[in-house]
């Protein structure tokens, strides 16, 4: 058998291999034959010395299964057992149905999340209002002192101070509430992130 005939037959036997692996095998045996010929053998002898094409091919093909030989076969990407491309196509076709649902759900969740912030904002405004009102009342008490008399001015001053104190006191729950809510938000995002990571892994 000539070298060309040998390589052609080997190529046919290795048809099931990826083109790169096949090419590599052919080059290897091509080189072997060339080296044998260089040693003084005729081409026929060199080819004959390699053994039968069937056996060589069988050896190459069976070695493919050894550990660390070939990268694991590429798994087709799936989404819950259905091919990824089909999942994407179905999702795109169902867009008019799920998009409004998802959007309204997202908006609802966002609104629910906004509620505590609104309450905090209202409390904050109340607190600031009370504190500022208290300060204004205290100033007013001195302004109206000549007209209203000492007792009335004293009463106004007392009420104003109480108002101011109440406002300052109210600031504490507002601050704690804000901190707690911000921490809660951060925690939620972290949780969301780790769940996604787990799903990926």
């Amino acid at each position, binding site marked *: 058998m000539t070298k060309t005939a040998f390589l052609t037959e080997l190529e046919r036997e290795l048809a099931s291999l990826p083109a790169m692996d096949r090419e590599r095998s052919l080059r*290897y045996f091509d*080189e072997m034959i*060339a*080296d044998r010929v*260089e040693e003084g053998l005729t081409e026929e002898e060199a080819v004959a010395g390699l053994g039968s094409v069937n056996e060589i091919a069988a050896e*190459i093909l069976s070695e493919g299964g050894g550990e660390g*030989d070939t990268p694991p076969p590429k798994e087709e990407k799936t989404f819950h057992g259905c091919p990824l491309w089909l999942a994407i196509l179905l999702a795109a076709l169902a867009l008019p149905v799920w998009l409004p649902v998802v959007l309204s759900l997202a908006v609802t969740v966002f609104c629910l999340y906004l509620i505590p912030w609104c309450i905090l904002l209202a409390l904050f405004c109340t607190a600031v209002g009370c504190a500022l009102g208290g300060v204004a009342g205290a100033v007013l008490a001195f302004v109206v002192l000549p007209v209203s008399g000492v007792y009335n001015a004293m009463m106004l001053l007392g009420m104003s101070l109480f108002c101011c104190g109440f406002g300052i006191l109210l600031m504490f729950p507002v601050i704690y509430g804000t901190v707690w809510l911000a921490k809660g938000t951060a925690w939620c995002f972290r949780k969301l992130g780790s769940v996604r990571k787990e799903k990926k892994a």
Partner: protein
Amino acid sequence: MDVQLKRGLLDICVLKCLADEDSYGYKIVRDLSAHMKISESTLYPILKRLEQNEFLTVYMMEHNGRLRKYYRVTAAGRKRIDDFLAEWDEVETIVAYIKGGSGK
């Protein structure tokens, strides 16, 4: 001989054969043939496996107007030989037990 065992041994033999100087397929077969039965077609998957495991690197060099593929053993390949020898000491201890008569 057990196929797995022989395959493992041949891997080391090829690395050992390349330890002193870089070589090419035909020369490896010729050098190893002095010590064991090995054919070109047996060597092919071994070289491929060793290269994939990064125990070898390959390069092409021109020879008589054609390209010949040369193989060079890597540091990991040399370590593989040492590891094998260390493992083999253990194997010898076990073999000594198997051959020994008392069974205790």
